[in-house]
């Protein structure tokens, strides 16, 4: 069964460093997303991406964050200068949206630890 894959599974970085989290969405999907989950809290939306541009973003997704689809298969989230509070699980998701039915399929996540 097709799945969303994310790499790395765990990323450790120093505060102030740049990190790039990578995702390969399901191949025939058109919409891509990033969510995050701080330990013990709910899953929160960060950004959605369609047709090579951001379609929606949350207040969390400030100038330190960016997304890119550098080729036909990868979708990346970059955090330019990491802060301690960026430590969380980051989930990539993708979907084929038709009508109002939007089922998003999630990857296993990347655990980001900022020291």
């Amino acid at each position, binding site marked *: 069964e097709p799945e969303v894959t994310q790499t790395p599974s765990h990323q450790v970085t120093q505060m102030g460093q740049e990190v790039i989290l990578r995702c390969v969405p399901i191949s025939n999907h058109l919409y891509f997303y990033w969510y995050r989950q701080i330990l013990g809290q709910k899953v929160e939306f960060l950004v959605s991406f369609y047709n090579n541009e951001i379609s929606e973003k949350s207040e969390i997704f400030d100038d330190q964050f960016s997304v890119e689809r550098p080729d036909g298969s990868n979708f990346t989230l970059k955090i330019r200068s990491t802060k301690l509070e960026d430590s969380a699980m980051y989930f990539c998701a993708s979907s084929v949206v038709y009508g109002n039915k939007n*089922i998003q399929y999630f990857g296993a996540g990347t655990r980001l630890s900022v020291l």
Partner: protein
Amino acid sequence: SQKIEQNSEALNIQEGKTATLTCNYTNYSPAYLQWYRQDPGRGPVFLLLIRENEKEKRKERLKVTFDTTLKQSLFHITASQPADSATYLCALLGFGGATNKLIFGTGTLLAVQP
């Protein structure tokens, strides 16, 4: 803003019993509601979607109901098994026209005892 509430306490049940989880929402009327399963350290896995005009949806041992008057969805697992132990998340599409943003509840941790 939209608010989604799920049982904040863990639900412990015996194997073979039916587990019932609750999702309540406020401040708007979603076109549909989704349930996901999340295991520790893993991403949410889609289980079921129910539309506002559907009262009930079933898939194998799972059943979801949707009461738009009460603004509530119930999620049932019949003949529960220890392998059903996980956190179950309720999710709605964000409010306001053309959005694909999912808003999740905090989830309910289900523990099925053998």
